[in-house]
């Protein structure tokens, strides 16, 4: 064996490499090419680096909106009237969908099959969306659809199922007009709502309390910054800002009284083959609305899951206007229920006293025109209380003529007529208080001396019995009768008893707001109230309904049969009944309205009696509430 240590390597030296011209050319080409790549790299990574890095970030870091739960609406005792029930929607992140056209088309076709949305609609929705954001496609899923799609989601890149809270109204028709519904933001509102921080696909309150208390119910959406991978799956969360649930609203409504009011009104309407009406029950001490019903109603749940065009067309073209909340937006002449205003004005202005006797003939002539009483015979001389109880038209023609239109209008406004109540829902109509000035402004005829512009004595006397151009709403009437009940305080009606945050902490407790005091002395008001007491205690007429229902006629009421649609003797009428009880210290006031009703004491009053019966039987329960804790 050879010892390697003793061996010296063969001395061999490499000659200089033979770099031929072509080898040098090849080397030069390599160096040139690599240098070119380096220059381009430097341009991409240094010059364009920041903007491309921002694109990379935009690829993977997304802000996800964490939807805040909308506030729950309860009645005054804490009974839930609306729930946020879970609903599922398909969401698609366009960026995460397959890249190749065939694969993408196949996925859209599969999605179309699962959701029932046409492929064209899906493609359009996806094409117009933010490629990195989740776009909601199709209507809410049924439970079966949700299960079917959830099963397929893992094989559909970019598709996910998102859970949303959807409003479910527990009394969708009866409380529909009060609570309203939520719906998508109208395109005309889009920019304005975006400025207030709304997402384009967010639902907002459209009508009723849902709209009126939108800012309290909405809550504050949270967000999370998440890193997603190319398949749209969240890899990690960078930051979270938790959403704040909307505030819980406790309405002044008593659910049981609301149901009783609705069924009494519905039964009354049905008995007389009438289709439409409204009723508002308030607490005359506080202005709290205990019940508000407008018939016909509509199913507000139709709107929350996306109403079909057919259903919507049916609602908007129905001649009975089911979408109209007659309680706040139906404007009608008050008829005889207005006579308390005329009486108050006559007494307070010194034109009559409680003891002044005026005649009640079957007709009177003013300005060459004949104005009739409801009775075709002379009822004789009477004081104001009896005139109210008998609802003598000719008596109040005389009082109105003495008071004058402008003064009478002043008293009407003092009672709250002609002003939209400040209540927690949009769409409240003001009604109309006419006088000579109004007629000049409203006639729209160039010659102010023409007949249609000139206020006549006839306008004044019919104004005195609640006709002329006078308009009011059932809510307006309830506020008015409450003022008569409580000694002349015109209260701001309210639907909100309390507001609490999601954890139950009290945020707001409604306080009684007095809008105005009617300028009337106690003795004069007592005379008016006496008339209202006598009206429901007259034998054989109104009193019959109380006796037959077993309800003590302890209170004050007034019926009204208002003509509408022009002037003349044989016009269609609306029926009214306004009522408060008990007489000495009233704790309930109400207005009942029957559209195209006949005689008010036959059609409207019995409804009020039925409501009062329920109220009497449940007074303590109704007046209690969730309390201040």
């Amino acid at each position, binding site marked *: 064996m*050879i010892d*390697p240590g*003793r*061996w*010296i*390597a*063969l*001395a*061999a*030296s*490499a*000659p200089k*490499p*033979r*770099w*031929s011209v*072509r*080898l040098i*050319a*090849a*080397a030069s*080409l*390599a*160096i040139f*090419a*690599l240098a*070119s*790549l*380096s220059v*381009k*790299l*430097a341009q*991409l*990574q*240094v010059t*364009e*680096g*920041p*903007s*491309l*890095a921002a*694109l*990379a*970030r935009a*690829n*993977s*870091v997304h802000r996800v909106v964490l939807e805040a739960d909308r506030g729950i609406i309860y009645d005054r005792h804490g009974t839930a009237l609306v729930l946020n029930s879970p609903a599922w929607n398909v969401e698609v992140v*366009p*960026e995460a*969908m397959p*890249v*190749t*056209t065939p694969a993408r088309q196949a996925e859209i076709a599969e999605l179309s099959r699962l959701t029932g949305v046409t492929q064209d609609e899906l493609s359009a929705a996806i094409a117009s969306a933010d*490629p990195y954001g989740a776009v909601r496609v199709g209507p809410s899923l049924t439970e079966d659809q949700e299960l079917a799609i959830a099963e397929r989601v893992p094989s559909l890149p970019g598709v996910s199922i998102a859970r949303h809270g959807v409003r479910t109204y527990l009394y969708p028709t009866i409380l529909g007009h009060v609570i309203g519904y939520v719906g998508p933001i109208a395109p005309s509102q889009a920019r304005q709502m975006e400025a207030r921080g709304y997402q384009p696909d967010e639902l907002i309150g459209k009508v009723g309390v849902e709209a009126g208390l939108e800012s309290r119910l909405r809550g504050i959406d949270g967000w999370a910054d998440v*890193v*997603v*991978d*190319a*398949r749209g799956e969240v*890899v990690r969360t960078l930051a979270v800002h938790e959403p704040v649930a909307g505030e819980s609203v406790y309405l002044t409504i008593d659910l049981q009284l609301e149901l009783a009011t609705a069924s009494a009104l519905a039964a009354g309407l049905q008995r007389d083959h009438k289709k439409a009406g409204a009723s508002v029950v308030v607490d005359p001490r506080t202005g709290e609305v205990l019940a508000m019903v407008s018939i016909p109603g509509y199913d507000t749940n139709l709107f929350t899951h996306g109403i079909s065009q057919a259903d919507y067309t049916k609602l908007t073209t129905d001649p009975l206007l089911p979408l109209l909340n007659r309680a706040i937006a139906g404007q009608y002449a008050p008829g005889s229920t207005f006579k308390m205003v005329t009486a108050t004005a006559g007494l307070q202005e010194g034109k009559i006293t409680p003891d002044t006797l005026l005649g009640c003939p079957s007709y009177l002539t003013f300005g060459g025109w004949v104005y009739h009483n409801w009775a075709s015979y002379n009822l004789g001389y009477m004081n104001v209380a009896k005139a109210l109880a008998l609802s003598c038209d000719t008596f109040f023609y005389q009082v109105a003529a003495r008071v004058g239109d402008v003064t009478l209008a002043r008293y009407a406004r003092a009672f709250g007529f002609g002003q939209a109540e400040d209540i927690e829902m949009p769409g409240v109509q003001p009604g109309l208080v006419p006088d000579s000035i109004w007629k000049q402004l409203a006639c729209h005829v160039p010659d102010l001396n023409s007949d249609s512009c000139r206020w006549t004595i006839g306008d004044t006397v019919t104004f005195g019995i609640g006709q002329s151009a006078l308009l009011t709403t059932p809510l307006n009437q309830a506020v008015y009768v409450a003022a008569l009940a409580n000694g002349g305080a015109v209260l701001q009606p309210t639907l909100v008893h309390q507001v609490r945050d999601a954890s139950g902490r009290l945020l707001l407790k409604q306080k009684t707001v007095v809008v105005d005091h009617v300028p009337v002395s106690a003795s004069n008001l007592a005379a008016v109230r006496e008339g209202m007491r006598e009206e429901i205690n007259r034998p054989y007429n109104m009193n019959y309904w109380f006796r037959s229902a077993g309800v003590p006629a302890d209170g004050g009421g007034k019926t009204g049969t208002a003509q509408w649609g022009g002037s003349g003797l044989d016009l269609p009428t609306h029926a009214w009944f306004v009522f408060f009880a008990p007489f000495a210290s009233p704790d309930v006031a109400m207005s009942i309205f029957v559209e195209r009703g006949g005689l008010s004491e036959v059609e409207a009053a019995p409804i009020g009696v039925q409501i009062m019966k329920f109220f009497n039987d449940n007074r303590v329960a109704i007046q209690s509430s969730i309390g201040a804790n």
Partner: protein
Amino acid sequence: MIAARSVWRRLDLFQTAAAALLAVLGIMTIYSAGADWAKQSLWILLGAGAYVLAAALDYRRLMPPAAALYGGMVLLLLGVHLVGRSALGARRWLSVAGFPLEPSELSKLLLVVTLAAFLGRQPSLSWRRFAAVLALAAPPAALILTQPDLGTTIVFAAILVGLLFLGGARPAQLASIGLAAVVTIPVLPLVLHGYQRRRLEIFLNPSSDPLGAGYNLLQARIAVGAGGFFGQGWLHGLQGQLGFVPERATDFVFAIYAEQFGLLGSLFLLAIFGTLLVRVLKAAAVAPDRFGELIAGGVFVMVFSQVVENVGMNIGMLPIAGIPLPLISYGGSATITTLAALGLVQSVVLRRRTIVHERQAIHPEGFDPATVRLMV
């Protein structure tokens, strides 16, 4: 054993070090791409074995069986067409003992060897022999183009032109190839497959279809740019780690490398490739014969064309063609072929021309005749 020691001392360690460094960077990048880095490590190990074997093998012994090698290459490629496995719309793989083998990768090296053998026989290139070279290259190129594999065909064309150039083709012959290319380009859209034509269009206007065919290019560009100067750091590339860059362990591996290591790392990588290429060319310059020179030159063209096309398409300078980045991209056939090719270059280096200084040997038995034979 003595002989081996003295021979291995001539090994071009720069070339080995550059290849090793690339392999390590490759495994790191493949790991960051979430691909099977362990398997790639195995390919590297197998490739290292092939490297050593190829270096130990006297490349000159490949000269006589060159025709057989050529025949074997064509048969392999034919085999792909007949019994190959399809994936992504192309038939490229043969199953060998359960392993997917991509003969088109191996054929790159076989083409280098066979063309070098043909061109290496005579110092000059007659028009007849020029035509013969083209005729030799045409069948395997056609077989690969119809797999379809545009990328490898481009590499084939580069090897052919490069070897003709280094093999002493006359300027007129080279010019005729250039002319042929100019004539062919207008016809190209008619010959290319739909997806290949689309890639060309996208290259010319990448933002025309950001979610469709331009997606790859755009995402790769974003990744490279997002790397900035210093890079996002290993395993911290948003584009690469979250999967926005497609084919991120193979065709677009450079993009995710560049995202993680930045301009600094990219220039470093190009510098290593530069070193490797220059060392391979130097092997050509020291080769003892034209065959060796052309083998080294062919391997140079093979590696060079792939680096330029791959990096070029990653940064949007060249149209997309499925070409791996040598030693970085994931893939057994390509990795092993590249390492075997570099090993073959080492075989040339080991058998380089030497000037033997006859000295008195201290060794009692004098020269080992085997050593002398090996050196000359």
